């Protein structure tokens, strides 16, 4: 693999074969070492090839981009950003995936760790009991077919209308919790039926709810704008569009396969099935993805409110004291304005396992955060740190205003199950003062902290390169898992 080092934090895959643009990787020597090793071990299936394959898609702008948490995905790698020209470009399943708008909502409380003394176990138990999680769990909100169409059209606003949360939550959600591009009619009945009982459920796998403490502040101005202080208790909720998103993926994997043939688009990997953005099929898929985006926003809004209720019951807070800091989505396609070759133009940015992370001044971010940039909520894994970063000017120019989403896996689930036992992990974390409540012990083993890359190193690459800015580091104290 021809991989050129540009500087300490950037590598380039020069145009070769049918690539239309170069590949670009934001990384350090150690991450690049892992990528090379993966390439040598699995010549057919690895992140570097996936970056090249994405670079061969029609209409791709500037470069096929991977951020520091990159790891192998389906079609496009997790941790990738693909910006497409609206006229020449395509929308591909590979750059979005099954878990549409999987993302993180972080809530801010006025509490400090000391306020939880003697109540931590009760809080963990209550969260475990009240937040529906795990395979087969159902939510509090049971929807009819017409109601689900409203969810898909209105996103988080629907949940607020139903009494789950406040209008202020919407102000601090990406896209204010709703994209206008959704067309519920382009989502299959099966996808909707699967979602009837799943709004307000956490799901399983790597999804979680975590109570965290602000351990260190790196940027006082940004922390102030985000309402953060040292020792503060926060809650982060990581989940997505649940069964509806999965079914949209299944439905369109097939439809896009046919469209790829119909339009004679040459793809290097079957999972990169796609359609021109300006085609009937492309528009239909985008509107379905947008509906999935709204569904995930609604889902996190409901979960945020359930969390609020638990905090109020256990700790005697009032609901208004628990505020949404921000809500970011991974696995999305959005129309955004960016500068390409000195010209501002509308692009479709497809982010897979990466988040939007706009810099200061962009009109899309809440006024309160205008001068410091958009919060980027970076989820750790059980027992490891999470981070709050902010978008930067440099990130706007170089990575289409994007940020990392997490640490990225380094060990397979299979290997993790062989190596770890869920009970053991829960015990080890308990010794560190972290309470883990999980519906599946095997799932806990799969998500063992050492199955992931070192999040500190991933974040430090993004910070040192100036593409994202470190604001605060969080340590977990309670983790609820599916």
């Amino acid at each position: 693999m021809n991989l050129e080092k540009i500087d300490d934090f950037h590598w380039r895959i020069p145009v070769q074969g049918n690539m239309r643009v170069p590949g670009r990787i934001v990384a350090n020597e150690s991450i690049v070492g892992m990528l090379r090793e993966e390439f040598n071990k699995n010549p057919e299936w690895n992140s570097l090839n996936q970056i090249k394959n994405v670079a061969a898609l029609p209409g791709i702008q500037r470069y096929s981009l991977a951020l520091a948490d990159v790891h192998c995905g389906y079609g496009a790698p997790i941790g990738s950003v693909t910006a497409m020209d609206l006229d020449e470009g395509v929308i591909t399943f590979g750059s979005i995936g099954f878990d549409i708008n999987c993302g993180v909502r972080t809530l801010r409380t006025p509490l400090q760790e000391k306020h939880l003394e003697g109540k931590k176990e009760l809080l963990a138990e209550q969260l475990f009991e009240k937040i529906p999680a795990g395979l087969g769990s159902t939510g509090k909100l049971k929807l009819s077919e017409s109601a689900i169409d409203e969810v898909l059209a209105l996103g988080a606003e629907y949940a607020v209308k139903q009494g789950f949360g406040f209008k202020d939550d919407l102000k601090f959600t990406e896209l204010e919790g709703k994209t206008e591009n959704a067309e519920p009619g382009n989502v299959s009945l099966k996808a909707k039926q699967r979602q009837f009982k799943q709004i307000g459920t956490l799901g399983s796998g790597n999804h979680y709810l975590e109570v965290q403490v602000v351990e260190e502040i790196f940027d006082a101005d940004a922390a102030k704008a985000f309402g953060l202080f040292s020792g503060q208790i926060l809650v982060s909720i990581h989940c997505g569009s649940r069964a509806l998103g999965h079914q949209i993926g299944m439905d369109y994997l097939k439809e896009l396969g046919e469209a790829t043939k119909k339009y004679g688009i040459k793809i290097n990997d079957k999972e990169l099935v796609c359609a021109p953005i300006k085609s009937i099929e492309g528009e239909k898929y985008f509107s379905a993805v947008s509906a999935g985006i709204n569904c995930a926003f609604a889902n996190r809004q409901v979960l945020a409110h359930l969390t609020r209720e638990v905090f109020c019951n256990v700790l005697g807070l009032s609901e208004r004291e628990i505020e949404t800091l921000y809500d970011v989505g991974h696995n999305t396609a959005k129309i955004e304005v960016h500068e390409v070759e000195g010209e501002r133009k509308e692009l479709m940015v497809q982010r897979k396992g990466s988040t939007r992370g706009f810099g200061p001044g962009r009109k899309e971010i809440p006024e309160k955060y205008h001068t410091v940039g958009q919060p980027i909520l970076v989820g750790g894994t059980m027992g490891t740190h999470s981070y709050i970063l902010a978008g930067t000017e440099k990130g706007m120019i170089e990575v289409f205003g994007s940020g990392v989403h997490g640490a990225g896996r380094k060990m397979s689930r299979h290997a993790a199950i062989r190596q770890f036992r869920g009970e053991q992990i829960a015990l080890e974390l308990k010794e560190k003062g972290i309470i883990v409540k999980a519906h599946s012990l095997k799932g806990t083993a799969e998500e063992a902290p050492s199955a992931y890359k070192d999040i500190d190193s991933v974040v430090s690459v993004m910070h040192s390169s100036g593409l994202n800015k470190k604001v605060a580091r969080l340590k977990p104290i309670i983790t609820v898992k599916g």
Partner: protein
Amino acid sequence: MFELFEHKADIGVRGYGSTLAEAFEECAKAMFSVMVNIFNVRAKEEILVEVKATNLEELLVEWLNVLLSEASLREMFFSEFEVEIANENKQFRLFGKARGEKIDKKRHSIDVEVKGATYSQLKVERKNNGFLAQCVVDV
């Protein structure tokens, strides 16, 4: 016979059979075994499904995905499968039966949810004197 295989982010499901149909049935068992201990899932209810595709690999993905949808819609797990595959004018058609029961959190030992079957490491081929059907599932 079925087994799970290694994959960096997710997990691979593989079924072997003396016939193609049996390999598809076993692959479905492999997939449900990611979610639950299928030996605890009783075959109390039966559902019928039908899928079609232009090749056997896509047929496998369609088969697994329709089972995931049906299981999620009906809040069930499946543990027994019967498959018939017909080849009609370059179009493969699968008629399947799946048997299982409603999810019971107390009795079933539940693991992680499978979001979808993918084209990754997707293979349907002859192996020794039988067939193999496999793909990676997104969890």
